[in-house]
């Protein structure tokens, strides 16, 4: 029974990681990108806890997971704030449009 739970946990880690990576590769909306990062973050939290649970050091794993959650939430917060700024200043959240916008000809910089 307990082994089943580990297997389920590992499967969840792999599934979430895969979905998150897939999202990072295919999504073009900045908000969705941050969302994918959140999914990967959950995979990380789960992975730490599953590992701790398997090796019997669940308490240590939990304290690590707390750090992961904090960092992950901060990434979301700051990422979202930056996305808001992007939308306000450049009027778009599309990665392709934004990367085109930021492309300044290097010759202009080269002179200075």
């Amino acid at each position, binding site marked *: 029974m307990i082994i089943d739970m580990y297997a389920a946990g590992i499967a969840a880690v792999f599934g979430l990681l895969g979905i998150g990576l897939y999202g990072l*590769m295919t999504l*073009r909306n900045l908000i969705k990108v941050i969302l994918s990062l959140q999914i990967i973050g959950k995979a990380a939290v789960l992975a730490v806890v599953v590992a701790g649970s398997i090796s019997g050091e669940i308490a240590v794993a939990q304290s690590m997971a707390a750090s992961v959650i904090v960092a992950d939430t901060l990434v979301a917060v700051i990422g979202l704030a930056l996305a808001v700024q992007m939308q306000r200043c450049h009027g778009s959240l599309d990665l392709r449009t934004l990367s085109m916008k930021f*492309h300044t000809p290097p010759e202009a910089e*080269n002179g200075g």
Partner: protein
Amino acid sequence: MPVHPVILVILLPLLGMLANLSLAHRLREPIPGLIAITAAGSAFFAALWAAGTVGAAPDGVVHVHLLEWIAVGALQVPWALRVDALSAAMMVMITGVGTLIHLYAVGYMRGDSRYARFFVYLNLFLAAMLLLISADNYLVLFVGWEGVGVCSYLLIGFWFDKPHGQGVKNSTAGRKAFIVNRIGDAGLLIGFGLLFWNFDSLQFDAVFAGASLLPAGDPLLVAITIGLLLGALGKSAQIPLFVWLPEAMAGPTPVSALIHAATMVTAGVFLILRSEVLFTLAPVSQSLIVAIGVLTALLGASAAVAQRDIKRTLAYSTISQLGFMMAAVGMGAYTAALFHLITHACFKALLFLSAGSVVHALEGAAHHAADSPSTHAGQGDDAPFPQDMRQMGGLRRRMPLTFWTYTIGALTLAGVAPLAGYFSKDAILGWAAEHDPAAFLALAAAAGLTAFYVGRQWIAVFFGAPRSTMAASAVESPSIMTRPLLLLAGLCLVGGALNLPGGGALTGWLGAEEESFHLSVAIASLTLAAGGLGLAILIYGRAVHRSADAVWRDPLETRAERLMKVMRQGWWIDKLYRRTFIRAFKRMGLALKAAEETELVFDRLTYLGYNRLTEALADADETLFEGLEHSTTDFVQELAGASERTQTGQLNWNVVGIIGGLIVVFAIVATIGAQR
């Protein structure tokens, strides 16, 4: 947990930094400086206290466990400090010289717009440096190592907003120092990785105990020591990674004295001293160190002969003296190396601060002249450049105190008998004569050159007629700047007593074997010092007196112009790098730029970072290095052509790149796991 004074030693500069950082915008000018001085000075007394505890400790080593840091499986890295003879000696030296330089900086930085920030950086530097030397494992050492690197970067580019492109040059110099050091640090990290991989620890005692079970000359030890050596070469500005130090002189002079002469650059030597056990077991690495040290000593000394900038001369001199120390540690003369490290800190700090006093006075005079409208006549081709020795001369009368302190520093560097530098250099030369005659000859030649270039500089700056209006109207620096000079000069006078030949205090302190004293070597090195100085007086003494028209004519430059030019540019090593690695990298950048949608980050990296180098390339010599350059660039260009399609600047593609890298890493790990 019993509180050990070494905690205070690190904590006090840190507190000073925090105080200045949080209160900077509320405090009026001298107060941030006073806070910083208080922090540094009290750290000095704490260091003395800490040094006092070493004698009572078992085995002469105090371990101080502060906090748990990394505890993952076998990797146990706590925040732990270690006080033993080596670190205590370094600690006292760093805080002592550091306090004097802080005092000096209060005068030097007066009126600077980022006064408080300067002292924040200076205190942060002290804290990082002290952490580096009192670490008990390689990872804590690395934290300090990178900390001092960051401070060095911040302080080289401290005047990043100077007008006329000077600011850009300053920040480029900072970046160069940082990047060159990263190359060394890569080696260092590989060394650490190998250490942990094989000894399951990064704690010094555990590593050394594990290493001493291996046979001498074990390839593993050679690999580890070469990794560590690479880091040391970067930090201590040795061949081939010395190119950053001459340009690091862009920073304020107290920084040049503290970081780029007295303390940080000795960190590489310290690392080898600390890992003495490993290096003793790897004779191959040791002979490599000797070769590098000797070559660097010669290169630095010869390049110093041809410099025109007062601070660059001293920078090359530092490179050369660090070469002496490196050669010494390579030959196993650990006590002599530490002795020279300490005396060098005193006399090079003295020389730099005296030079800074000269520059400060000339800057003040130039400022003054620019303010009064009557004297702005000759502002055409010879714009005042206060660090150029060609525009100095005759400062002996205008700045008597600085002249005398500089003279003491110069004589110490040259190695004249009762001064500190004589004993420490002689200890290295004596050891070399006994163990490695070839190295002895080369080091003796470098010592002769040392006396010559310092004599040249001494004459060019202080004798003859003033060769510019600045020099003619310079006035002695304020007493807050000259008092540290006097103290340092005093240290140079008596510092030799620290380790007199035939069993001195330092040897006893370190518990090392007594070094034998060679009368013939002592006489030889004195003759060399006297000969070098005499030659300088002979060649330049007449030149400065003859040039009544107040123009600097270097007799050597008229004789051997080409050679002097090559030497002035550091034997063109910098140029070689520019024409191979950097040009290749630049071409790669250009090719990548040509791709349809250019990558945002890459553009920034390539173009901002190498702007100055493009300029430099424009006037570079076309005939040299062509073949070498072409083979490299062609290869990189092909590589670039293949990879340019992926550089679209879109996050999605970047993620694909990351995942591709992950796949490669996982594949490697999986195959290694399958083989085990």
